[in-house]
């Protein structure tokens, strides 16, 4: 896919919005507005944003857990307001205040996130099967972490997808670590993309800090899937700039990640890299950059207002209504 100026700007705006929402989530968790826990996306936004921004509205996504899926939702065109409201426990959230950090928005091809990592794989096979039956060229893009790829469910779903030629793109967001576990101790080869070859799936390894590279690779795989050529696998080498979750220690095998380790990762901030390149190419001016930042701030303010004005759910009858369909 060729990306024009508008496309590049869209990618940039989505990255900036993602970062702004991520920061807001961290702040709101600290003040008690955001409930439960939060796992920031910072440093790993490009795979989600790059992999979703050019999808069709009816394409299906399975968001990865970081930022509880904000990069993917924002790229997919979902208004993050109602996700944030849900995460804050409000009745105006996607799940009427029953979902917590879980999320679904069917109209945007987002049928839900899970708390048990790796359940995304078989579910994606199901979405792929339905998409194939629909026969309208819908594609499923399943995002997951390096650690999540260690689940056995990956193999069952990958095999099924390959045998049935399901229209699925598996996008691995390899940030080198799963909570406290470095990936080199959890997978024996350098590239997780090797997992695809056992099932005869084409694969590619891309720089996951380069949002355009991600978008190009994923969209090429999406076109293949749309044309009936079956599943493929994209591995994005990305980063996690802070601890796994807010309040967690930032350790690998019980030893602190050093400030030098983190500084090195931060040198390749996907937003800074892209901004520099867009300014150099003249796609954006410094004024544009300023305006985009301000618009993101305004969107956060508006979201906060929406959340503050939204009621908490308070009727247990909601549970009955939600348990079984008519």
């Amino acid at each position, binding site marked *: 896919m060729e990306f024009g100026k508008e496309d590049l700007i869209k990618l940039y705006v989505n990255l900036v919005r993602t970062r702004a929402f991520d920061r807001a989530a961290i702040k709101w968790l600290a003040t008690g507005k955001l*409930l439960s826990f939060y796992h920031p996306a910072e440093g790993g936004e490009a795979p989600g944003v790059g992999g979703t921004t050019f999808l069709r509205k009816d394409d299906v996504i399975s968001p990865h857990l970081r930022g509880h899926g904000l990069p993917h939702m924002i790229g997919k065109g979902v208004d993050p307001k109602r996700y944030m409201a849900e995460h804050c*426990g409000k009745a105006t959230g996607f799940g009427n205040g029953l979902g917590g950090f879980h999320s679904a928005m069917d109209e945007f091809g987002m049928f839900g996130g899970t708390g*048990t990592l790796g359940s995304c794989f078989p579910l994606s096979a199901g979405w792929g099967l339905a998409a194939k039956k629909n026969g309208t060229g819908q594609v499923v893009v399943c995002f997951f972490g390096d650690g999540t790829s260690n*689940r056995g469910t990956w193999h069952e779903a990958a095999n099924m997808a390959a045998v049935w030629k399901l229209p699925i793109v598996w996008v691995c967001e390899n940030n080198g670590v799963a909570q406290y*576990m470095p990936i080199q101790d959890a997978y024996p080869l350098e590239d997780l993309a090797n997992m695809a070859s056992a099932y005869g799936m084409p694969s590619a390894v891309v720089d996951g800090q380069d949002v355009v590279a991600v978008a190009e690779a994923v969209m090429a795989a999406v076109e293949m899937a749309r044309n009936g050529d079956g599943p493929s696998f994209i591995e994005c080498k990305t980063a996690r700039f802070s601890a796994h979750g807010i309040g967690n*220690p930032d350790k690998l095998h019980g030893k602190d990640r050093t400030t030098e380790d983190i500084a090195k990762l931060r040198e390749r901030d996907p937003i800074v890299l892209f901004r520099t390149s867009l300014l150099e190419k003249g796609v954006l001016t410094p004024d544009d950059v300023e305006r985009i930042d301000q618009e993101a701030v305004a969107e956060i303010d508006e979201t906060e207002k929406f959340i503050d004005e939204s009621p908490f759910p308070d009727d247990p009858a909601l549970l009955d209504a939600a348990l079984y369909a008519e």
Partner: protein
Amino acid sequence: MRELMYLQAINEAFAEELERDEKVFLMGEGIQTGTFGTTTGLVDRFGPDRIMDTPISETAIAGAAVGASLMGYRPVADMMFSDFMYIAADEILLKAAQWRLLQGGTQQLPCVFVANIGGYRKLGNEHSQCPYSMMLHNPGLKVVIPSTPYDAKGLLKTAIRDNNPVIFLYHKGLLPVMGEVPEEDYTVPFGVADIRREGTDVTVVATSFQLFWAEAAADMLKDEISIEIIDPRTLEPLDIDTIMTSVRKTGRVVIVDEDTERCGFAGELATQIMERGFYDLDAPIKRVCAKNYPIPGGIMEKFVLPQPEWVVQAIKDVMVD
């Protein structure tokens, strides 16, 4: 006596059993760091070959524990959240639980599955459950749910020394709770309930974190109702005798348990009490459990998970003649 946090008591039990028996080893996700502090620091003492960080592979973690136990090791599989044990249901419920009988009782499977249980953190269905009814439903597993630092340490040591698969479930809400733990070596036997408070009007059997609600209710009602509180400590084996002795004295029973009500431990216990002591009862038994819904995320969990006032109400209800 010295006081420790519940999570430290668990940590200390691991350290002592690792020290005592070289066949003991731990495996699980991030255990060298320790997501809940229960295994933190052990790697420094016992090394990465005995404190093994694993890939995110619950099926293989649980299955490997079963396999290694059949060859004479004493593995502890740390499953992190008990909700994740569903992922290894075959390995835990069919393999660990049922293997020995199917080989005619010729083998031993000395493995322990450790995980946290419990809600009240607004985390939703996949990080909040107390799924021990499914474990109790599969004979062959022992099920341990300590409520104090003392019991956590003593029961975990017994679990590791037991020659059968044991499920050891610690409650998230209890992790920072302090309590007396002696310096010297001790164990707490399975199948011995703890009478936490003596009373004559009502028997309240409560498990794990729910003991807090039970004790709060007993404090609140202390001028009107004399409440006996019993912590079974292990659900299998279950000390039904201690419970029945209490029931014969009080004639009234409330069971407080955080697992989902339907087909849960509370229903099982109520039936066992009724079968043994129907004519000793002065009122129908009341259960206070999680309501029969998935545990929602966010604040709606308060309509599903047992609340302190539900316990108070249940006690008042059984007092009505």
